[in-house]
């Protein structure tokens, strides 16, 4: 622990010395009597001070938690000497908050006696959070010296986004070959009735529609829609994050991505993820319960990395975007690189849907007339961008951060059906 001497020590010594000196020069012992208490205090403080030796062990009740959950930190402290005032400060990460008031705790630590202090931190935002070591400040009995240091070891906390339970989400236009919960547009073995056609050699007799066959005098069979799975790729815009009052569009986009991934994986879809930004991140589409852990682990590492390079979808590994997959883009539609990349995806025939995390919530117009004009122009520019997508048959779901995602996606599903009817 590093020691710091308070200015009080020098002041007291100076006052005591000044009293003695004045008594000598002036010839009045009253001056010495005034300075004497300060000399006594100085000598007492110097005699009693001892460099503390503090040992500490830190315990966390867990290192993985969901947003909004609490984590209990316990520090057990022992010292070889008596510490009249020991302050323990918790370096609370910006995305967490210490409950129960202050994040500085003060206690008296008796020699060779263990003391335990506990604090509760609440996770406010997802992410990989390095938890710093507790800082210690020991004061001597008279406040002449301070000894500062840190104890224990830093820990890493993994805070996962709290997913919203979605009843329905956007559906892919095309299905894959594996069985699943999505009704395929093709005809084959399934449950859902599709059509009736004349019997041809090789058709199964169990599919014969006897009512139709008896009415027409020719054999007809029922055709069915098979239930298949789909490939869904969640495209996360990591080029922009509009923040205000400690909240940002990326916070909500990651929560939405986790919610959608959980929903699709529960429906036996194959889900992959692409983080398109200054640093490209991707995860190949896969199904199963393991994939959700892979996805959320990848998501909580998401961050906006400043980059000026103009990159397109060529940088994305081809296997990350399987044919006939549904690409759900979570974006603010602010960065030109993302806008162009998504248009490029659509031009290459991918089934694209855009969930726009509305940045308008975080962009407050200025009070000046010019600022308000600029704000209106910005709104018009964004409306024009949306129109470009809609003309290409891309459904855009406008989602206001803080509102439930489910109703917004439901609106997108309606648009999706209309869109397929036009362009399918």
């Amino acid at each position, binding site marked *: 622990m*590093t*020691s710091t001497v*308070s*200015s*009080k020590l020098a*002041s*007291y*010594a*100076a*006052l*005591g*010395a*000044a*009293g*003695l*000196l*004045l*008594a*000598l020069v002036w*010839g*009045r*012992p*009253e*001056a*010495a*009597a*005034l*300075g*004497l*208490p*300060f*000399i*006594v*205090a*100085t*000598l*007492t403080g*110097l*005699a009693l*001070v*001892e*460099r503390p030796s503090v040992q500490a062990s830190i315990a966390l009740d867990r290192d993985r938690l969901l947003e909004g959950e609490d984590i209990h930190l316990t520090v057990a402290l022992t010292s070889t000497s008596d510490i*009249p*005032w020991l*302050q323990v*400060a918790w370096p609370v990460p910006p995305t967490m908050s210490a409950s*129960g*008031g*202050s*994040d*500085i*705790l*003060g*206690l*008296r630590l008796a020699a060779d006696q263990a003391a335990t202090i506990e604090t509760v931190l609440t996770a406010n935002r997802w992410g990989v959070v390095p938890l710093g070591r507790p800082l210690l*400040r020991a*004061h001597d*009995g*008279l*406040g002449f010296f301070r000894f500062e240091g840190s104890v224990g070891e830093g820990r890493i906390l993994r805070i996962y986004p709290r997913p919203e339970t979605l009843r329905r989400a956007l559906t892919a236009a095309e299905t894959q070959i594996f069985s699943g919960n999505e009704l395929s547009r093709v005809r084959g073995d399934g449950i859902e009735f599709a059509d009736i056609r004349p019997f041809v050699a090789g058709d199964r007799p169990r599919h014969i529609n006897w009512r139709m066959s008896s009415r027409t005098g020719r054999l007809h069979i029922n055709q069915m829609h098979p239930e298949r799975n789909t490939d869904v790729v969640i495209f996360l815009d990591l080029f922009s994050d509009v923040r205000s009052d400690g909240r940002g569009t990326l916070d909500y986009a990651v929560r939405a991505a986790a919610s959608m991934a959980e929903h699709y994986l529960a429906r036996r879809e194959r889900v992959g993820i692409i983080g398109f930004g200054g640093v490209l991140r991707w995860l190949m589409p896969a199904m199963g319960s393991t994939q959700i852990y892979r996805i959320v682990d990848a998501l909580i590492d998401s961050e906006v990395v400043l980059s000026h390079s103009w990159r397109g979808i060529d940088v994305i590994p081809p296997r990350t975007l399987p044919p006939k997959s549904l690409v759900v883009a979570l974006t603010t539609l602010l960065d030109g690189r993302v806008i162009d990349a998504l248009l490029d995806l659509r031009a290459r025939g991918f089934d694209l849907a855009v969930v726009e995390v509305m940045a308008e919530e975080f962009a407050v117009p200025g009070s000046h007339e010019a600022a308000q004009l600029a704000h209106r122009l910005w709104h018009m520019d964004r409306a024009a961008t949306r129109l470009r997508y809609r003309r290409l048959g891309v459904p855009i779901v406008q989602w206001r951060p803080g509102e439930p995602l489910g109703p917004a996606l439901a609106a997108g599903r309606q648009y999706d059906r209309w869109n397929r009817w036009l362009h399918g």
Partner: protein
Amino acid sequence: MAPRLITAALALAGAAVIGVVSTAVSTDAGSVAATVSHNGFMIPGLLSVAALGLLAVAMAIPDGRPILLVIALLGAAWLIGIPDTAAWRSLTAVAGGWLLAVAELAYWSLDFRVAGNDQPDIHVRRAATIAALVGASIMLALIPQLDLSAIPVSGLELTAAGLLAAAALVAVAAVMAWRLRPSR
């Protein structure tokens, strides 16, 4: 009320008491102030007001550096203001302890800048430590005041005692600096 405000208010009140007493008695014959000026109360009064103002600023900023000057000004006001009588000379020992208490309260108030959720007994113990220190200081200062006439007010003995005290202080400080050297 916050502990920081309580201690600051007590320090200001303590400083005001010293200032008022030294100003009130400065008109008596025999005080340095009355000897120097016809309006004797002006000098300790001004010194006390300056000290109180500085202390208020130090508490408000908050900064511990002006406290040294505050105590020096109050001490000067006391020495200038008190009459040259045995009773007041004896009371100087109490005034010294009082000044120490004012300084301790002021520094304690500054320490509350970084205080968080402290266990209450920490501050109770500190208050007790300050009280014990002030009491011990007063008792020590009163010993030579018992018979001031017996103490040489000038001369080689007093000079030697003063130099010895200063040397002892420096020696103790050196020893403590050695004890508190950074550990490897």
